[in-house]
Structure formats: structure tokens, C-alpha cells
């Protein structure tokens, strides 16, 4: 059902077609399909157990799907490990953020991609370059931290989230997947992180946002896909739908089945 419209396909960054995944007897995904448009914020919503996490883990190479296919930039891709997805520019910000608290902000931003100088085994960290670039990145994204030389331990939840997101896009990634980025944050910090997410879109980065926060989804996203019972119940352009419609699709009342997003 997706990709029938050729005009739409040209703008599609990632396409998931009829994905199946089961764990033992549990069918986590059955024939789930969706598409992400380049440079848009796409929200993935659904009840607990609807299959959102499994979908994300298939897209990021954590799980291997049993059936169906994933196309990225029009090419079919098969990920054997998260590194494969990362190599194509798909970065994920998981809920645990994967930050090392005792390291500084700049050390976390450059973790495992450190800039060094010197030759062979005598390579030393080029701290000045990393500190400077880290400050530049955070300034560009309007992320406020007291100092990039402070340890992450001193940062608030919102600052940590922003650091993790900044790190995800520092490497020329084209798609950033965020799992409940504001679940643990207060109102003010949530706003700051939301501003950062819209800024990513302004920079041309495609965002897949998994969120339980309905208002947030309506506020931020361009496109919403709704999952229910291991399949994608349908999609809507955010501008052309209402919260009630989305709720109906999530719960399965008024049948939201097979609905195709309007252009």
C-alpha cells in the first residue's frame, strides 16, 4: 500500500514494507508498513505492546525481521547489527541516553570518535579541538550547558537529553530516532528538548519520534503513524487530523484500518 504513489516515493527516506517479527509464539509485528519523509518529524504512536519498540529495533539493526523489507534511500537494506544502521546515518537516542556520567560533556560527545594528534601508538587526544567543536555544536543547536568541561553527572535531565540528541546528530546522521525523549522531564525542560527537536528538522534531519505525550505529537510532528496489535493501523498528516481521530486509531474504535496518509 505504500509506495503506490511515485511522487511520494522520491521524498521518502525510509520505508518499511510488511515487516514480520516474532519472539517464540509471540507475534510482535505482522505485516507492519510505514514510511518516513525526508526532513520531517514523524511520530510513531500506539498503546504499550503495540509493537513500537520492536519496529524501532528492526529499523536500528537490533532485531532482524523475519519477513518484509526495509528500504533506505530507495535501496533495500539488511542490518545485522546496530553498527550497520549507524554506518548509514541512522542514529538512535535510547531512553537510557548512553551517557557516561563521570566523563565531561565533550568527552561524551566524542566518545569512540575522539580526535587525536600525533603518529601511530603515540597518538594523544586533541582536547582543544574536541572542546571547541563541542561548544560550537551545542551553540548551533542552542543547547545550554554550564560548560562542556563539566561532567555529565552535574547536568539536569533535560541537559542530558539534549547532549544525547546533539551527539546523535554530530556525525552527519540523516535519521535520528528518539524513544520517549521527554518522558522523565519537567515542563520547562520538555520545552527545551522540543525546541531542539524542531531545530533538527530545520537542519534537514529526519526525525522518528516515539512518544506517549499526545499534545507533543500534535505539536511537533508532520506525520503520525499509529500502531496497534503488531501492525500499523494507519497514518495521518498531523495538520489534517485531530487528537480524537488518532485516539480512535490507537484504540481501534471507528476502525482506522488501512488509512493512507493524505498528501
Amino acid at each position, binding site marked *: 500500500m505504500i509506495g503506490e504513489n511515485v511522487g511520494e516515493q522520491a521524498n521518502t527516506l525510509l520505508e518499511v514494507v510488511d515487516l514480520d517479527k516474532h519472539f517464540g509464539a509471540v507475534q510482535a509485528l505482522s505485516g507492519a508498513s510505514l514510511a518516513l519523509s525526508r526532513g520531517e518529524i514523524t511520530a510513531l504512536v500506539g498503546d504499550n505492546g503495540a509493537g513500537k519498540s520492536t519496529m524501532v529495533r528492526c529499523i536500528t539493526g537490533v532485531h532482524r525481521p523475519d519477513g518484509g523489507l526495509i528500504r533506505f534511500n530507495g535501496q533495500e537494506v539488511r542490518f545485522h547489527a546496530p*553498527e550497520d544502521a549507524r554506518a548509514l546515518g541512522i542514529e538512535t537516542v535510547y531512553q537510557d541516553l548512553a551517557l557516561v*556520567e*563521570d566523563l565531561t560533556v565533550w*568527552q561524551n560527545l566524542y566518545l*569512540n570518535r*575522539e580526535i587525536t594528534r600525533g603518529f601511530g601508538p603515540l597518538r594523544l587526544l586533541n582536547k582543544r579541538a574536541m572542546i571547541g567543536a563541542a*561548544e560550537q555544536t551545542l551553540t548551533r543547536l542552542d543547547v545550554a550547558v*554550564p560548560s562542556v568541561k563539566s561532567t555529565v553527572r552535574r547536568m539536569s535531565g533535560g541537559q542530558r537529553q539534549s547532549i544525547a540528541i546533539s551527539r546523535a546528530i554530530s556525525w552527519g546522521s540523516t535519521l535520528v530516532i528518539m524513544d520517549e525523549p521527554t518522558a522523565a522531564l519537567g515542563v520547562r525542560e520538555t520545552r527545551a528538548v522540543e525546541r531542539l527537536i524542531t531545530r533538527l528538522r530545520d537542519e534537514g534531519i529526519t526525525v522518528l519520534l516515539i512518544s506517549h505525550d499526545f499534545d507533543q505529537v500534535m505539536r511537533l510532528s508532520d506525520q503520525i503513524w499509529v500502531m496497534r496489535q503488531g501492525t500499523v493501523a494507519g497514518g495521518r498528516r498531523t495538520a489534517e487530523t485531530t487528537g480524537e481521530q488518532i485516539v480512535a486509531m490507537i484504540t481501534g474504535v471507528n476502525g482506522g484500518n488501512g488509512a493512507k496518509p493524505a498528501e
Partner: protein
Amino acid sequence: MATPTPTSNQTPPGGGRRGAVALRASLRDPGFWSNNAVIFGLIVVVVVFTILSPSFFTAGNISDLLVSAAILVVLAVGQQFAIVVAGIDLSIGSNLPWAAALLGFAVTHGWGLPAGIALAIIGGTAVGVVNGLVVTKLRINDFIVTLGTFGVMNGLALLLTSGNSVPVNSGFMQDLALDAVGPIRYFWLVALAVAVVAYVVLFHTRLGTHLLATGGNRDAARSMGIKVDRIRIIAYTVSGLLVGLAAVLLVSRTGTADPSLQTDQLLSSIAAVVLGGASLFGGRASIVGTVAGALLLTVLINGFTLLDISQYYQPIAVGLVVVLSAVLSRFQR
């Protein structure tokens, strides 16, 4: 943005009045005291022993004291590598006599001193490699694995030597322990070189960052693509390597290769790291602190000996100091 936050032990530039105010502020901050506790502790015990014993603060005593501290410095820096990745190396207690026994074995079998030194270092390193492989590949707790190798290497060292110490008569080894470049003893140079290299590796290389990251948050390090198993194996290998080096110093200093357990050195190596302010949960390291911790423990033992306090009190004092430092570290920033 990016304005630096003042931290407790940073005196702002501009000196004078502001410096004095900042100093007074940090003196009232318990974090300032706990962050530098080992340095203050070292100063206090040196002052106390200087007052109590006229022979303590003499060139001869300090020189010898630093020589005996050198072995502990090398061991404690090795222990620091295991601890920084959230591990611990208990095998030091028997790896040290094992490596010493290898040196003695090589010399008594006429293989020559260079072969003996190489064998001691290789033998010590090998134990570290085994520790690292078992901990990571078989996924067994660090404590259990190194407790196991502690026992195994003790037995192997006793089997190799039939339980006997052997004298190692060598001009080179004697010179190493006794001679000096001017007032600088060779042992100090070895310990200093080890500490400086460890400092550079930990805080100025990718490997160091990956060691700290693996110890601080192993899942996060793995998520960022760091090969955490390899990093942990490297940490135990470095620990083993430094035990081998310490064994060479030990044989040089005592003139014999003694296969019996060195439990004191094991406990002191862990104590020095804890005193230095590193976290036993990994991810935080301090080479300066670890060296100061090793010096503090050596000064305590030296001072007790000079004051003719029964050596039975020594482990009590060492134990209390370690617990006290752990209490202080609760205030750490």
C-alpha cells in the same frame, strides 16, 4: 553559554582578595577536603612523624622510604587499571611472588638475568591476560576470577620452587636497588616513569577515555561501539604487566626470589587506590592520588617502625586509614 562553573578546588585568577575569599570558601567546603584528603593525610603523617622521631625526616630515611614505596606505587598503579574498569585484581598477592619465582628459576638454571627479568614480566603479564579473558569471555565476576588465580598462582609458584626462596646474586640487581643518579634513586625513576606513562595513557589517549567510559557505564560504552571486552582485557593485562615489573624490583631489593604470598602488598595496593580517591565502582581514576596513597601507607609503616610501635599495630592503622578515607569520599564531588 559555556561559562565555566567555579569548582571547589579551583582558585579563580585575579589572585589577591578574590583568591583569599575563594580559599576561605573552599576550606569550609567538605568536598575540598575529601577531594584532596590523601594529600592532607600525607602531610599530616609526615609532620607528626617528623615531630615524634628525629630520625624520620632525614635524607637517608626519606630516600629509603621512597625506595620501598616504589614497589607499592607500581603495584597500585596496576591495581588502578583493574579498578578503573570496575574490576579488581586480587591475583596480585600471588602473581607477585610467581613472577619473582620465575626470575629466580631462570637465574638458578643459568639462563641469565636478562632472560629472568623478561620471564618475570611475561609471566606476570600472562596472569593478567588470563584474568581478563576469563572475566570477559566466560562472564565471571572479577572478584571470583582473580580470587581463583590468586590461589592457582600461589600453588604454581610453590610447585616451581618447591617452596624455597632462592638468592639472586647479581651486581645489576643490587645496583638497581641501591644506586642513584645523583640523589635520585633508580627505584624512584622506575616508579615515576610508570606513574607518568599511566597518567598520559589514562587522561590523554583514546584508550584511557575508553577505560574510563567502560568502567563508568559499560552499557553506554558498548552502545557507542567501544569494544568493552577488549578494553577490560587490556586493563587486566596492564595490571599483570606491572606486577611483573614490581616483582623485578622486589627481587632486586630483597636479593631473593621468595615464592610465599604477598597479601600485605595486595591489600596495600587496593588501599592506595581507595585512598587516592578513585571509585571502586569504576569510571574515576587518579594517578596522583594513587601515588600519594601508596606514599601515605609506606610512611605510616616506616614511622611506626622508627617509633618502635609493635608491627602488630600496622595493619590496624592501615585498615583504619582506608575506612576513614572511604567515609570522607562520601562527601566527594
